């Protein structure tokens, strides 16, 4: 993974943050959340950011309820209190967001 590719010149605020010493917050990466229909939503987060924040933002954006969704990465359920760093996520990696169906007709 490359650090440079993730910084976003359009984001002035982000750039301002870079200048401040925030070593403990981890480097920024892009995380993609993809639903079962193939629709993607891209997030820019720090590697240490808890997934809960991404999930919340995703649900808010999509008007969905978090407890009815399952987030999967690399064949495992992603837990809200984990961070991209903990699951060794790299820039541009995709989290699958799935929902359980209750039909069977």
């Amino acid at each position, binding site marked *: 993974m490359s650090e440079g590719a993730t910084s976003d010149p*359009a984001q002035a605020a982000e750039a301002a943050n870079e200048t401040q010493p925030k070593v403990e917050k981890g480097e920024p990466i892009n995380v993609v959340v993809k639903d*079962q229909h*193939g629709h*993607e*939503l891209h997030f820019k987060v720090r590697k240490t950011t808890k997934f809960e924040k991404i999930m919340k933002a995703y649900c808010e954006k999509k008007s969905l309820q978090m407890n009815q969704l399952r987030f999967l990465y690399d064949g495992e359920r992603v837990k809200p209190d984990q961070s991209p760093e903990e699951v060794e996520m790299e820039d541009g990696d995709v989290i699958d967001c799935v929902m359980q169906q*209750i*039909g069977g*007709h």
Partner: protein
Amino acid sequence: MWPEVTADPAFKDKVSSARVLAVGAGGIGCELLKTLVLTGFKNIELIDLDTIETSNLNRQFLFRKRHVGQSKAQVAAEAVLQFKPDVKITAHQANIKELKFGVDYFKGFDVILNGLDNLDARRHVNRLCLAAGVPLIESGTAGYLGQVNVHVKDLSRCFECDEHAAPKTFPICTIRNTPEKPIHCVVWAKDLLFPRLFGRQDAVTDLDEQRKEVNGSSSSQADGAVQGPSFFLQKQGENSYDYAKRIFRRVYEQDIEQVKTMDELWKTRRPPQQLDLKEILDQQTLPETANGYSSASRALGLTESHKAWDLCENARVFLASIARYVDTRPDEIGTLVFDKDDDLAVDFITAASNLRALAYGIPTQSHFDAKGMAGNIVHAIATTNAITSGLIVTEALKILANDLDSCRETYLTEYAERKHVVMLNPSRPSQPKPDCMVCGCSMLSLKINTTTATLATFVDKVLKSRLSFNMPTIMCGDFLYEEGDGLEDDELEMYSSWLPKTLSALPGGGIGNGAIVDVQDQSQHFSVKIVVSHQDNFDEEKHPDGVILEGSAKSTRQAHHASSSANPVAELSNGAQSCPDDNEVVIVGSKGITGFKRARCDEGDDDDVVILGEPPARVGTTPNGKRTRL
């Protein structure tokens, strides 16, 4: 080790001697049964309550037209025996919730396979599997989507560790007065108007409540004849079309006029417009009711089910379907319930909801779409059921091989941009949730108005509808309420006399704020504790039935604390404490937003999660548009 294992003679023996229970013989069930026997399973029990309907035949391939009306379980078993005569299939036409299918019955199987179509039965089976300690392979489909989950007690999550999206309900005032979407009109036609005209006459529906409310507030020109549910019945000697026109004028002229007088509703909305029947019909004729057609739309020559009708066509179908009911099916009036396979009922619902939509300036629906909405139908796809069944059997083999490590939960995904290529998304089953109300130990928290909600509401809406209890026993202090077989007559009488009482007025001190209610169900070997807290008012939009039920309170003490101080649920919902001071999530643009509008998802100075937009349409337009295609 796979797939060599499956070729191993010892394992083949294991499969052929394994005892499996398949619950459901419908869409998934038919495919599952076929796949099971072709895989080598020889001892199968099959349970399904339903009988075969014509609409099943396009995807439930074990059934033929001649089987319509017969038991699904029986016919499926017979069909499979024809091409695999050496297997033993025991078919039950029964409800899985019957007491004879208790824990001991479940213990007789190596694995349980679910091919159900509703949440309630799934929860019931889940509880019994946990009680019996038998692995459960659970499945579900809807359209192109579906999944298979593996539930092994203590090793993986149970079915109820996670929440499931319940069917949507709508606030009653939206349905009654202020519809905004086509579905609101369909629900109105199906749940309010249809039962009022053709259903049980003794029940007062919300349609009448609306009338009272409006009259009460404006005391307008209420002519006596318009009052009461009897208005909606055909009068002695009244011509069927006169009757239908009278109904039309009532619901699309008078009722709309009334609702327009409720000024506060129309401050932010466009008020509806009455429909003038005379103007709409103009010189158009209406078909004879006795012309051999069972469907009103067909009698009118409207045979294209995907084409939406215009105003006049809707009005004619509306009148013709009412007239047809009273003339050709008079015996059923008063007992009818909406059935999506009843063409006349679908005609009526389509026309009635479209007319309402037209009055409110909402888009209308075709016969086909209205049928789908009224029947809550996502069109079932045989292929999805077949894939799902294959996955169920695959997981069942892993369970039999005792190779739990290989078990996977698989979600079907549908990538529309690739022409419905179906993909599988396997993941490991997750750990059980310690605070699951079923397999773990936790308490639920219930907010309800204890001074107005009755015991009946608690039993029906909370325990049975939300929590899928079958025969609940309720204990709270000295209060005891029981249901189920084996009760004496005087007990039954006493218990049912309590149902209309409000929670706080129940004997034995009542169920009030801070009460801990213990609810058990012997038929499911399941019990749960519910911490009740009183709340006066509910947001009708969010909680139309006046109930907020959330899990999971961690301990009695905490729940008590919370209910006495502030909001016991806030800190429990979603496990999400409100965000700390610094913010780590920023959305940077998304589909439909051109350029990069920065949308904050939290307050604070320092945003760290940024949404970078939604391809596929915009690939390349995002800064650093690095995309991964799976």
